[in-house]
């Protein structure tokens, strides 16, 4: 197993950081090789530039500005996202990672004379994990249609191997979360990771963070 974990949160003492630590502990216990993209930690630049847009369709030169990210997504067979949901969607930082890294001939193949539509390009990825926190309730998120979840599970999910294993877990009402609700959520994440890996692997549950760092 080769797992790429994309983590996006501005605070390193956040609850999302605890989720990330648990994900990594599970992967480690499963004997997986892992690579982490800590977008805030590494100062990732999320804006697709004018030059990148102009060279967007020029493969493989379009990979130049994000060559390491592209190498990692080509290397992995398991992709995990850990992030807070802001405005029902991905933080700009993570959205920018999709914009700049999921390029033509990397993530998808553009229409041509033979093919009328965009085709998936990440069929070597067999497992997708999506872990998030939402300020909104489950009900409100459902009413809005969970745009962030859909962007990853369906939008990105479509690019991966058909029949891939997919797990999703969200802690809703994050602003009124309690140590108990956060601990329960970590147990849920642990169970989902076992399913993603395909067997139960032992890993310690991280201590719930302080209420000041709820999300």
């Amino acid at each position, binding site marked *: 197993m080769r797992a790429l974990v994309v983590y996006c949160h501005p605070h390193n003492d956040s609850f999302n950081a605890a989720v990330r630590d648990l994900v990594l502990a599970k992967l480690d216990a499963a004997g997986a090789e892992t690579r982490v993209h800590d977008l805030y930690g590494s100062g990732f630049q999320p804006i697709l530039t004018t030059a990148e847009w102009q060279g967007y369709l020029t493969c493989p030169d379009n990979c130049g500005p994000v060559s390491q990210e592209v190498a990692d997504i080509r290397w992995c067979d398991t992709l995990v996202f850990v992030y807070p949901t802001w405005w029902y969607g991905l933080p700009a930082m993570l959205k920018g990672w999709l914009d700049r890294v999921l390029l033509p001939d990397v993530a998808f193949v553009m229409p041509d004379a033979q093919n009328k539509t965009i085709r998936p390009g990440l069929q070597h990825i067999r497992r997708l994990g999506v872990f998030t926190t939402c300020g909104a309730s489950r009900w409100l998120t459902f009413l809005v249609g969970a745009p962030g979840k859909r962007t990853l599970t369906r939008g*990105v999910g479509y690019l991966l191997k058909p029949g891939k294993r997919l797990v999703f877990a969200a802690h809703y009402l994050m602003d009124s979360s309690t140590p108990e609700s956060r601990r329960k959520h970590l147990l849920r994440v642990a169970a989902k990771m076992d399913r993603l890996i395909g067997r139960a692997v032992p890993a310690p549950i991280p201590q719930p963070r302080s209420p000041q760092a709820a999300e």
Partner: protein
Amino acid sequence: MTRALVVFAHPCDDSFSAAQKNVVVGTLGAKGWEVDLADLYAESFNPVMSADERRGYHTVPANTLPVQGYVDRLRAAQALVIVHPVWNYGPPAILKGWYDRVFVPGVSFALVDGQVKPAMTHIRKLGVVTTYGGTWWRTKLAGDPPRRLVSRAFRYTTQADKLVYLALYDMNRADHAKRADYLARVQQAMEQF
């Protein structure tokens, strides 16, 4: 009702998105709107919410200080029109970051007893002009995330009387005639706006 904030998110001024923006700005101007164009790329908007900003997110009214200029421009407007391409089933990061950083509590919504209440009710008309790389079908299968954000979340926080969502799908294969048709649709919608 006189002032419209047009938010534009595309890196190139010779793009089809820029053509849509020009039609929107020109048509609204000709119809007597006072148009304020927020061209996020040209204004070098920083879409990344910082660690400090996230910590102060719920501190009304100080939470607007990092983006006070944009909050003032938004509050001065009675109409909001957003022009952007859809990339990977969502707005470009620079625009998502504008939502993240500008639509903070007290500006777009208020939390009253833990319940979300609309606070962007000065916006009476809401418009989106966009293009998708994916086909209509594929977009619907994915659940059309960017449309839902506007038609449900923003519609709620503004309580707008009018919502216009214009989209051209399968944009990469749209020929000149289709694009011209789309620009005509945009012009007509903005005339009626």
